[in-house]
């Protein structure tokens, strides 16, 4: 029975600040386990493929990959609905996928094609899907946190029972605007969850070199917080469900997700000058979020090793097909240069580089 209840224990207890932590026992089912495995491996496959496309120069500019951190995206989605909002930084591909975005939209966006989720105009850092509660995809470190608090403000203003998850990194955690936003969120009891994805490095800077207090779950001071094993999808799910309830009742809470990125900061960073290869392989061996689920599935005899391999093979196929489709998508029409500047362009003229050669009437 794929819906039978299985109870699993989180890898570690939650460490908490100003709040009683949730239980370590998490309920799941064979179906959920299989979905987690499928979703996480698909995300990983997508990022590996993006790496290749970048190296093949089909993706340009900045490109930040999420492999290693998949349990955060997947566990969070398992605890919430698409009416809840998520907002994140530039490391956004897998969050978009988690919100129901497609592989084709992702790859097309990465390659700057018409079928991209932002019609090719945003690129890697600027994925959005408002209709499923995904508000981007932001390139300025820290900026998404007050924006996310604003989403929570709007949810409360409209008297809806939804919450917003505002995600940021350990590097972003020192940004002043985060403290400003947190104060307002607490002052006004906004249903906001701050999710600090602590992957222990902000670009090449280890957390302790950037923060006097790298205990990010405590950095809200008067705002409660939880430290969560972000490599354990069940811990993430439990914490997010708990946080949602907390936020609706009591206002903001911080979740620090202890996680790790396998890739360098972006495609231009080899990711090995400021940390050792041993550190990376150690995490891969001992804490990998996919392997944790694989073991659980095998331990509970839900699927065989071969069946899991088949899923991964299938992912590969699906991803390759999506890439092929994305490649077929044309570049945006040149007229798109002048669309979406405004919702309402008043029909005024806008200029290209040579205004006597190229000008358009804004729609």
């Amino acid at each position: 029975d794929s819906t039978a209840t299985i109870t699993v224990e989180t890898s570690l207890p939650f460490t908490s600040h100003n709040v009683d932590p949730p239980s370590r026992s998490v309920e799941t089912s064979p179906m959920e386990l299989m979905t987690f495995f499928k979703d996480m491996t698909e995300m990983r496959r997508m990022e590996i493929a993006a790496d290749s496309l970048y190296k093949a120069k089909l993706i340009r500019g900045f490109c930040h990959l999420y492999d290693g951190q998949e349990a955060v995206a997947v566990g969070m989605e398992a605890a919430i609905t698409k009416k809840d909002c998520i907002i994140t930084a530039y490391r956004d591909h897998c969050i978009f996928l988690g919100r129901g975005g497609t592989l084709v939209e992702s790859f097309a966006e990465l390659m700057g094609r018409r079928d991209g989720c932002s019609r090719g105009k945003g690129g890697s850092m600027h994925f959005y899907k408002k209709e499923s509660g995904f508000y981007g995809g932001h390139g300025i470190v820290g900026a998404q946190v007050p924006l996310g608090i604003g989403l929570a403000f709007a949810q409360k203003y409209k008297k809806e029972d939804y919450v917003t998850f505002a995600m940021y990194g350990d590097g972003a955690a020192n940004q002043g605007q985060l403290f400003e936003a947190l104060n307002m969120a607490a002052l006004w009891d906004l249903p906001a969850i701050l999710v600090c994805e602590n992957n222990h490095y902000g670009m090449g800077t280890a957390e302790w070199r950037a923060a006097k207090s790298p205990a990010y779950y405590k950095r809200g001071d008067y705002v409660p917080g939880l430290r969560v094993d972000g490599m354990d999808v069940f811990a993430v799910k439990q914490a997010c469900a708990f946080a949602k309830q907390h936020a609706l009742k009591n206002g903001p809470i911080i979740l620090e997700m202890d996680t790790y990125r396998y890739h360098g900061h972006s495609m231009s960073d080899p990711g090995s000058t400021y940390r050792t290869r041993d550190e990376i392989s150690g995490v891969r061996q001992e804490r990998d979020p996919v392997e944790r689920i694989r073991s659980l599935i095998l331990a509970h005899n839900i699927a065989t090793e071969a069946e899991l391999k088949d899923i991964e093979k299938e992912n590969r196929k699906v991803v390759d097909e999506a890439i092929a489709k994305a490649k077929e998508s044309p570049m945006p029409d040149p007229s798109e240069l002048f669309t979406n500047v405004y919702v309402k362009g008043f029909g005024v003229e806008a200029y290209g580089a040579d205004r006597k050669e190229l000008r358009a009437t804004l729609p």
Partner: protein
Amino acid sequence: KQMMVREALNSALDEEMAADPRIFLMGEEVGEYQGAYKVSKGLLHKYGPDRVVDTPITEAGFTGLATGAAYYGLRPVLEFMTFNFAMQAIDHLINSAAKTHYMSGGNISVPIVFRGPNGAALGVGAQHSQCYAPWYGSVPGLKVVAPYSSEDARGLLKAAIRDPDPVVFLENELLYGESFRVSEEVLDPNFTLPIGKAKIEKEGTDVTITAFSRMVGYALKAAETLAKEDINAEVINIRSIRPLDRSSINASVRKTNRLVTVEEGFPQHGVGAEICASVVEEIFEYLDAPVERITGADVPMPYAANLERMALPQVEDIVRAAKRVCYKSISMAAAV
């Protein structure tokens, strides 16, 4: 009927808030204090603290917050106590508000108004006197308006609030208390002015004077003086810095063949520079004299009254420049 600019803004806010529950007003001292300059007087009482929200002094945070609320579909009107303080939050105006509709390929729109006093007041020194019209006006994705009269204030604020895009609304502290005649039409709750259109405040034939915000009044005074010397100046109230109403300006200069631009802000890369360049590009052959810019002096705003006066355009500066372009007599630059 006479109406103060403050009242014009207040009534526009009031009527729009009454009409659309998605609109809320947020900022420092907008509620219990009734606004640092009393623009929001009475609104807290009428709409309650959910819709008239006093904030801590955290511009970056609350600007991001209001912008996020706009993403969600609310229609925030965000008051900066002055636009000088918006510099702490300018990243959100530019990167979070102006660019998001474009970056998202249209997925997210950002219906928000950023408003508050801009430019120089009197005696408030260098940190409280800057004009930000050129900066915001340079950014695609933003609309930028600067009202002069009560008609402008009412019509443009209502239009800005109803607009689906981010609008920067540049008020002027010294105008709040000025009274203007307003027609019945202006008082109608459905009155709006089109963003992107200038207004010919006074028709004329001899020289075009462009100005915005408080400087429109100066330009009109200059036109009166000029009239006494038989120079018939046309005064254009720019109203909208972005989009700029190039065709109205061109039409005027085609008629007068002479142009003086007036603004309070720093000269380099200013609104006057743009207007001059635009006219030169588009109707160069109509210009019978060099375009003249009257601007704030190229120094931080001094406090001392005599220096401050020198740092800001005066009516006589406009008169002098207009005469110069009309008679082509170039006076010697006086060294100080």
